């Protein structure tokens, strides 16, 4: 029975390890507590649980796909290996000097996060490449030898190599590697040109340092995991989810562990993309809201938006610039400190502020009755009638509405002359507006108009807020899929094998060189395809071509997608037309009379997306049985109204619910605002649309 139709998805998160087993279309899932010291233990435990449920043994599993926050956490908690950096003489402090600016301008006591490697761990060698890729000053083995000796004596486990302009010419980096590897064969080495071949030294050096820093840890973990799984009788291949939303082999993951950063959220985006495909939706906004943060991602043409750089380990209220930049292909999402546990206060301007401080699970929101005296988002949700105090988490936690009201009045109401309900309304509106703003800014940066989008919501707190968010964003349709609690792990099972290779090479359209482009893109295609071929020996492999273009003199490029024909038989007029088209769409007007240049070339190789059967929309089969009713606050009219309560399990295909209503299940509650109505689709999704569309 060992076929790839038996597949296991495993997502190690901060609190829970989610395990999903799919056997011939049937799905079995569990959540077990993450075991920090030996994360593989939770996986084995979870795997045994779902195998028992499905009545199979681990030997029957045909494929395992794994994603994890371990890489991210190692960077946040600074639990990496003893690591050194070798860089160009004169540039020892690039990763410490950062952008030489303060990310919060009004805080006189601001501290800048320490670099991953302190200064004594950063070594320099002579030699210099210039901005054309030519050698300005040579580098010899004799120059490198003393540094290698110092590294040998200090006993580093891992070494990052990052030299100036190496993305244009990697010969010096390779020479350093060769000398180092010869003298110290056991030291792990990471090259900036292999990890992140892009211009801007701070981002590139930081990325290669991060890779080197977590490499020994991740390599050892992945090795142990493989061993434990084999001991359990698992015989199949094990793959890793990467930040870009695809899957790579265990070996590649161990070599480039920085590519595993944020793989869990990437799985969530893939999960949403798969649902988008099921419904034939080309414009989707995925909205994932948990206990401490909310993540928002744009999914166009059933493919999550990707980016080339993001920031990890923000240290200062999730503020931009307070973390460290990692430049790798990544699913582009915004994450803000807004979750069910986010706490509210009133600031000096008498404005309600929510998050990023979170109540966590201890003491938790005030309504948990564990001593929390500050109002959290969950408290507001309770007072507004969105949550049932007697049926939270399947009835396992009894919520205390009075405690929520007291906290809301004490922290917000007394300051602002509002009663508890109005305070709750204010709190919920502020957190919803924060998320809506994050979504708007993200859409603008990508030149998108959200009113044409459909939202897909998952994560414990999302269904409580998604309806209101849609009203704020002018989004007319919302889908809440089943299994939303383990969305990322399900997403892993939907992800293709993929790898994106990219390179910084400058070319002006006035110096357009078709042969050079063909050769470059050909190389990138071969490189990316090689990674994918490692994972799958037979499948078709598709190539997606993207070039990053800008007007000569600008600093920020926009990605231009090319067809294979446009890429492999390149001509300047086509490139120009594609650029002007996309630039105008993004920024309103083209700039006349300027040369245009290409800065980064990228090829993403991927196996074809899993065949998805489109859903036939459910035919209305009558109103869902009403389980009861309760008073629910309607933010659009700012008044409480009587809302019907429906059990999700009672909703058969085509069952309808008219807002205002609460559709409840063990993990969460879906709020249908008074402006909307809901219908259960054949795949179990609750499909919520505006009434006027009826």
């Amino acid at each position, binding site marked *: 029975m060992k076929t790839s139709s038996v597949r296991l998805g495993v997502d190690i998160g901060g609190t829970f390890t989610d395990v999903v087993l799919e056997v011939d279309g049937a799905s079995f899932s569990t959540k077990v507590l993450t075991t920090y010291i030996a994360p593989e233990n939770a996986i084995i435990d979870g795997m045994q649980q779902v195998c028992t449920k499905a009545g199979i043994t681990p030997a029957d599993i045909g494929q395992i796909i794994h994603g994890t926050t371990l890489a991210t956490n190692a960077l946040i908690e600074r639990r990496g290996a*003893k690591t050194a950096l070798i860089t160009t*003489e*004169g540039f*020892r402090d*690039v990763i410490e*000097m950062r*952008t*030489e*600016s*303060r990310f919060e*301008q*009004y*805080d*006189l*006591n*601001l*501290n800048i996060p320490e670099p991953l490697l*302190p*200064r*004594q761990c950063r070594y320099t060698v002579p030699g210099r490449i*210039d*901005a054309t890729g030519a050698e*300005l000053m040579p580098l010899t083995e004799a120059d490198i030898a003393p540094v290698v000796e110092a590294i040998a004596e*200090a*006993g*580093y486990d891992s070494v990052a190599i990052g030299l*100036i*302009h190496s993305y244009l010419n990697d010969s010096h980096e390779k020479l350093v590697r060769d000398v180092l590897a010869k003298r110290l064969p056991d030291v792990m080495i990471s090259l900036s040109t292999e990890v992140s071949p892009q*211009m*801007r*030294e*701070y981002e590139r050096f930081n990325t290669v340092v991060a890779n080197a820093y977590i490499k020994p840890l991740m390599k050892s973990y992945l090795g142990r995991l493989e061993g434990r799984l084999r001991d359990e009788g698992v015989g199949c291949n094990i793959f890793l989810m990467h930040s870009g939303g695809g899957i790579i082999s265990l070996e590649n993951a161990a070599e480039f562990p920085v590519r595993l950063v944020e793989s869990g959220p990437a799985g969530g985006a893939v999960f949403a993309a798969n649902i988008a495909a099921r419904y034939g939706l080309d414009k989707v906004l995925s909205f994932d809201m948990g206990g401490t943060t909310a993540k928002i991602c744009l999914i166009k043409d059933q493919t999550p938006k990707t980016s080339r750089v993001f920031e990890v380990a923000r240290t200062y209220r999730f503020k931009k610039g307070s973390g460290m930049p990692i430049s790798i292909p990544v699913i582009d999402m915004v994450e803000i400190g807004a979750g069910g546990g986010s706490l509210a206060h009133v600031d*000096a*301007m*008498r*404005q309600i502020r929510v998050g990023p401080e979170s109540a966590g699970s201890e003491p938790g929101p005030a309504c948990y009755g564990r001593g929390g005296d500050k109002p959290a988002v969950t408290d507001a949700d309770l007072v507004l009638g969105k949550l049932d105090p007697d049926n939270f988490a399947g009835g396992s936690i009894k919520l205390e509405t009075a405690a929520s009201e007291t906290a809301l009045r004490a922290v917000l109401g007394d300051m*602002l*002359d*509002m009663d508890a309900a*109005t305070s709750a*309304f*204010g709190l919920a*509106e502020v957190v919803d*507006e924060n998320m809506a*703003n994050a979504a*708007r*800014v993200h859409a*603008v*940066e990508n030149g998108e108009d959200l009113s044409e989008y459909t939202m897909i919501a998952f994560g414990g707190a999302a269904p409580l807020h998604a309806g209101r968010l849609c009203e704020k964003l*002018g989004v007319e349709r919302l889908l809440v899929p089943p299994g939303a609690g383990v969305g990322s792990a399900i997403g892993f099972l939907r992800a293709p094998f993929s790898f994106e290779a990219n390179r910084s090479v*400058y070319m002006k359209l006035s110096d357009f060189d078709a042969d050079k482009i063909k050769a470059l893109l050909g190389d990138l295609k071969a490189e990316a395809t090689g990674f994918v071929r490692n994972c799958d020996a037979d499948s078709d492999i598709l190539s997606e071509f993207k070039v990053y273009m800008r007007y000569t*003199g*600008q*600093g*920020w490029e926009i990605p231009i997608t090319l067809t294979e024909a446009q890429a492999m038989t390149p001509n300047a007029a086509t490139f120009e037309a594609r650029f002007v088209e996309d630039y105008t769409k993004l*920024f*309103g*007007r083209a700039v006349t*009379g300027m040369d245009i240049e290409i800065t980064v070339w990228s090829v993403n190789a991927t196996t074809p997306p899993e065949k998805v059967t489109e859903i036939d929309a459910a035919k209305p089969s009558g109103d869902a049985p009403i389980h009861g009713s309760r008073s629910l606050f309607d933010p659009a009219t*700012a008044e409480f109204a009587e809302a019907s309560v429906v059990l999700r399990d009672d909703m058969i295909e085509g069952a309808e619910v008219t807002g205002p209503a609460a559709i409840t299940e063990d993990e969460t509650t879906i709020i249908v605002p008074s402006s909307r109505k809901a219908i259960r689709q054949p795949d179990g999704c609750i499909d919520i649309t505006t009434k006027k569309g009826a």
Partner: protein
Amino acid sequence: MAQSQSNVAYQVMWNRLISVVEEQAQALVRTAFSTSVREAGDLSAGVYDTHGRMLAQAVTGTPGHVNAMADAVAHFIRRIGRQNIFEGDVYLTNDPWEGTGHLHDITMVTPSFYKGVLVGFFACTAHIVDIGGRGFGADAASVYEEGLYIPIMKFAERGDVDDTLVRIVRGNVREPDQLIGDMYALATCNEIGHRRLIEMMDEFGLDDLDGIAAFILDNSRRATLERIAALPRTSAEGEMTVDGFATPITLKVKLTIEEDRIVSDFTGTSGVDKKGINCPLVYAKAYACYALKCAIAPEIPNNAASLAPFEIEAPVNTIVNAVHPAPVALRHIVGHFVPDTVYDALDKILPGVVPAEGAGCLCNFQVSLRPRTDAPAPPDAVRSEVLTFNSGGSGARPEHDGLNATAFPSGVMTMPIEATEHAGPVIIWRKELRPDSGGAGKQRGGLGQYMEVGAREGHEFDFQAMFDRVDHPARGRRGGKAGACTTIAQDDGSEMFGKGKQFVPHGRKVMLALPGGAGYGDPAERSLDLVKRDLLRGYIAFEAAKRDYVLSDADIADVQEKMRKGDTV
């Protein structure tokens, strides 16, 4: 309920406006051509009501621009005339006195119309690399030599760009494509802000911004006044002396805290200089206000009401109130020292809040490259203007060390050297921390940095220096020691000056050591662990560790051993 309900809606709208102007600023960064804007973030963006009062301003940006631009829109309304404001218009200026302090800042203002009625304005400012004249630097004797002056006028009327203006601009600057590209970027960014505002007004069913403007300004005013009322009602004086161009400049301030305002009076400050380091009052005010806001009301967003209680007075023709036609290209040098001057006074009123002096002004230079003239130049040699922003160390704080190579008070970023080297045939040979440059103290001053600047084979260049603290180091507070001074010379030892345009022949490099911040508190009280950490990291050398902090030989041996083993502290 009705009252508190509108309160909730206004809370939402205020958040939205702050988000709108942030989008506006991001659009500018994405579309700009000058490295000063796109890499360094030397810009600002904001939204105004029909009276020209600033309602919100982007977090992205730098204080000098932000607070100066707050006053600019009122000038535009007056100069253009309300009867001449039409839908589709875009206005601009680089007037140092009605914009943001020098000709190198272009400010653009776009009226925002909703259903045919004027509802507000969007404004943005960006520092551009060249505006003609002598080039960016200190050497001009009057503003006429500093470049093309564009009075407040229309860039576009009812959507049509003024082609005559564009041609005049193109004909007067060294990098016309870059400047025209930046002008379009500024117009684009206002347009993005306008679109978002209109969406918000649709969503909330607003016909005008009067209600939300009153809500924002009332709450901000009340919050700011509460902070001021909590301060002791007293006054104190502060002063500091810096290099200036040929003669030192003394900045003096008397800070008076009144019931509902704080007045910074710069009477007694040096007069205007012959060279272009003078500062229009609007720019000095921006930084005085910034310094006070950081110390007193840091989290209150900038808008017309939260800025209003911070008043400035300075006699005409002092260097902080230079008037037309004084040269003002490098107004940032004096402007960036205003906060340290204000803090000298404020420390006497609120001890234990403000930092020791830091590097102060940004350590900028502009390189004008050209094919070598002493011998035949290679055919691929070019002319090019390259501007870079760099920072020395910031001053130590009462509870924290100063920040290494980090701008204060300016909010701009440095440019990646890989991006700088793509902007022209310049080579940055070195850019790294400068050990022993942070003033000793219980809290150590931030380190400055070393830089070495040359050109690609076949080029020579003029080096426009814009440095201070060559002769006047950052002064320590409460027993903290001074930071290291700026040094500048060529690699063969030829002398160079801290300010002004200086020729650098083919093959030579400029060697820079940028200043450190000063220390805070007695160095003898510094934690031994921190001294050892600094030594291990090479922030201080062994000699300094023994001299300034009395580290024992055993401690030093311990650090040496750790260094060899690659250990951390």
